[in-house]
């Protein structure tokens, strides 16, 4: 039993280490070029945001259209903490995440009592209010043009990749641990049927809040990493359009699936670059795909299932077996003779 637990931890763990470490080394030695590195790292940021959306929309079942607002809070906090308070970058990032979580608590408290549609409207409004506030408080925020924030992450693609994908991996592990626990089950129960969950002893409001605050923390960390990576911050990052982008990743990947959301983020971020040749028609690409998915495969790529590293690993021998014996007929008669002999 203990070996199984160890195995279940080791396989994905090693995959994570490999996914974080190997490309970082390759980038460092320019085997992967800086342009590709930037796309991968950006996909990492988008994955963190998709993770945030998945937590609140997919796992907790509450439609929030304002996660970009939390991202902006995290980004701006990091910049202000690093420049005005002169905190070292890793510390600013963590504190920025905590600050965003506090905002999540404050905003969630009155709004999670509202029924589903109303929550969507309020979160939409919240994102836009954040944007307007960021534009207007020029002294702190630099107004509509934002602020520059070049750091080592902006200049060194290997460090950027390592930091961001590393944090992504860490967040995924911590979040998955939380979801696959009695707390996660309580939150999913609230999503599945509020009244039944309540009648089974689960405080509905409390667990919606927990999901909301965790999601805002993750979004804050996403923003906190985005600012030093991209090198500047602008009020636009809080807008409704950005929130929708992240929602699209989750919808296409599977609302409720962590691995699905991340997979979709990577695929769509990379696709955006490859689609540059479409120019303006590129802007039509997303919504058309979205409509098609909603009509024909609304559960997205993975639905609520997760991609299992362990099952894939266990399936490798069988897969190799099938490939090796691809041309041969099944030998049932022989085995019977062998048994009788």
């Amino acid at each position, binding site marked *: 039993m203990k070996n199984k637990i160890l195995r279940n931890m080791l396989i994905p763990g090693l995959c994570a280490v490999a996914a974080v470490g190997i490309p970082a080394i390759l980038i460092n030695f320019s085997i992967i070029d800086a342009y590709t590195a930037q796309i991968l790292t950006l996909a990492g940021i988008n994955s963190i945001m998709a993770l945030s959306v998945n937590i609140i929309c997919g796992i907790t079942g509450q439609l929030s259209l304002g996660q970009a607002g939390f991202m902006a809070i995290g980004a701006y906090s990091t910049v202000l903490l690093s420049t005005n308070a002169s905190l070292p970058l890793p510390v600013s990032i963590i504190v920025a995440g905590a600050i965003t979580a506090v905002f999540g608590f404050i905003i969630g408290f009155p709004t999670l009592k509202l029924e589903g549609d109303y929550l969507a409207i309020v979160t939409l409004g919240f994102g836009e209010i954040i944007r307007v506030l960021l534009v207007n408080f020029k002294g702190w925020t630099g107004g509509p043009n934002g602020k520059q924030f070049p750091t080592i992450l902006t200049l060194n693609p290997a460090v950027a990749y390592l930091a961001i994908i590393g944090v992504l991996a860490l967040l995924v592990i911590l979040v998955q641990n939380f979801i696959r626990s009695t707390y996660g089950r309580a939150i999913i129960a609230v999503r599945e049927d509020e009244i039944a969950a309540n*009648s*089974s*002893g689960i405080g509905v409001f409390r667990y919606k809040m927990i999901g909301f605050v965790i999601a805002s923390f993750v979004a804050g960390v996403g923003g906190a990493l985005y600012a030093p990576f991209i090198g500047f911050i602008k009020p636009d990052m809080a807008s409704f359009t950005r929130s929708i982008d992240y929602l699209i990743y989750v919808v296409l990947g599977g609302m409720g699936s962590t691995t699905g959301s991340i997979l979709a983020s990577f695929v769509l971020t990379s696709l955006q670059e490859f689609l540059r040749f479409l120019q303006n028609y590129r802007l039509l690409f997303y919504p058309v795909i979205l409509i098609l998915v909603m009509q024909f495969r609304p559960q997205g790529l993975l639905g609520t299932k997760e991609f299992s590293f362990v099952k894939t690993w266990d399936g490798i021998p069988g897969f190799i077996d099938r490939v090796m014996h691809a041309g041969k007929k099944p030998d049932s008669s022989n085995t019977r003779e062998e048994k009788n002999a």
Partner: protein
Amino acid sequence: MPDKKPLILQASDISIVFGGLRAVSDFSCELHENELVGLIGPNGAGKTTVFNMLSGIYTPTEGQISFWDRNGKICNINRKNPAQLNKIGIARTFQNIRLFGQMTVSDNVRVAIHSRRTVTPLDVVFRTPRFRRDETIMTEQVEELLSLFRIIGKKDELAKNLPYGEQRKLEIVRAIAANPTLLLLDEPAAGMNPQETVELMNLIAFIREKFHLTILLIEHDMRLVMGICERIIVLDYGKIIAEGNPADIRSNPQVIKAYLGQEALNA
């Protein structure tokens, strides 16, 4: 020595008003330990509304509901919400089955044990030994229950994929997992054929004994009600029109007039 068992629940003249409509008026009842009581009445009589008041979903506009918890302490439960009531010992099932469809059978039951957890969020996130111990205990409790009710074989199936009868059973198992003293069953036999209904009757008798439960159930199936209830309360237009044992109710002209009809007289 009192010849009646101790009181578990006492509703005193509870009423509820929705907008201009008085859905339930002056409902009073006493439930004693280990009793099996039926609540019947024509459609729209207010039975589920009574349940909703007793289980914390509605707050009565008048009257008082008292509940005696596991330690014998009395509490006023008018304003308590369902989660609080679940913790002090009231569990229920629903007219239209409310399972957690996307969760497995065993997870559905595990949710009901959540309030008895010993872990904190930190334990969970960092997978401490305490987390593993807690999970093992929970798994044992869940599997014990599932074996008892003979659905252990389907423990990893998604709840929404179970056949109808087993979904109803799972809802009851989930309610019992919360370790209640009072169980409210809302039309447990709805949609069942005669064979399934007999099995259900046996199940209810079994859980009443095994878990020493007090059971209040709403039903339309007269076979079941007359078959297992010791006492029956009849509701019509939000008011109690009769109360007594099955024989009395069967022959009560008020009740017959309200809704029983020929079938029950022959039952």
